């Protein structure tokens, strides 16, 4: 008999809401690494014109947006009455963050 509980089969890892929680956690950890000061501003700005840096900045915008939207999701779950469609909300939050990041990339490339 298979005595493994659903939590130990790995099946939960394919659940959209588990993925949403992980994206929230990983994006939070990554944002922590991004907070730092810059003294030589113009030298830094010249460096930031590099396309790879622009891509990295796009990634940061995505992390910030997805972490904030994911956090709003958590606050809503904890403080508002439960509602159906949590999976759809998580997908909307992820998609909105992708759109914001893509708009940023477009605005610095064009």
């Amino acid at each position, binding site marked *: 008999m298979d005595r493994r509980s659903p939590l130990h089969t790995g099946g939960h890892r394919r659940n959209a809401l588990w993925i949403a929680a992980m994206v929230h956690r990983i994006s939070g950890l990554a944002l922590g690494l991004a907070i730092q000061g810059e003294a030589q501003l113009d030298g830094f700005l010249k460096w930031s014109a590099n396309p790879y840096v622009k891509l990295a900045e796009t990634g940061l*915008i995505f992390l910030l947006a997805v972490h904030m939207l994911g956090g709003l999701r958590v606050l809503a779950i904890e403080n508002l009455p439960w509602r159906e469609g949590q999976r759809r909300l998580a997908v909307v939050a992820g998609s909105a963050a992708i759109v914001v990041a893509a708009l940023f990339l477009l605005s610095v490339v064009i």
Partner: protein
Amino acid sequence: MNVRLYILQRATAAIMVPLVVAHILVIFYATHRGLSAAEILGRTRGSVGWGAFYALFVLAAATHGAIGVRVVASEWTGLRGHRLDILMWGVGMLLATLGLRAVIAVVL
């Protein structure tokens, strides 16, 4: 995580929602016009408003990040008890120091 840390984590998150939205809007506005040190410093130098905005942002982010790292460490590593608190305070102080240094550099 005790109740105080839990509430502090949620409170700093709620404080940062409008700050993050404003931050992203400023990023769009500033980068679209092309970045220059003169333009950025012209906006921030001597500005009490921007100084207060970013100082509040840094303190909220440092607190939020430190508590978040404590939660992740307690779930994903073997760290327990006092060591978790040392980690949390270390991360919080580091983030606050780096962030406030940057705020001072562009405001003063």
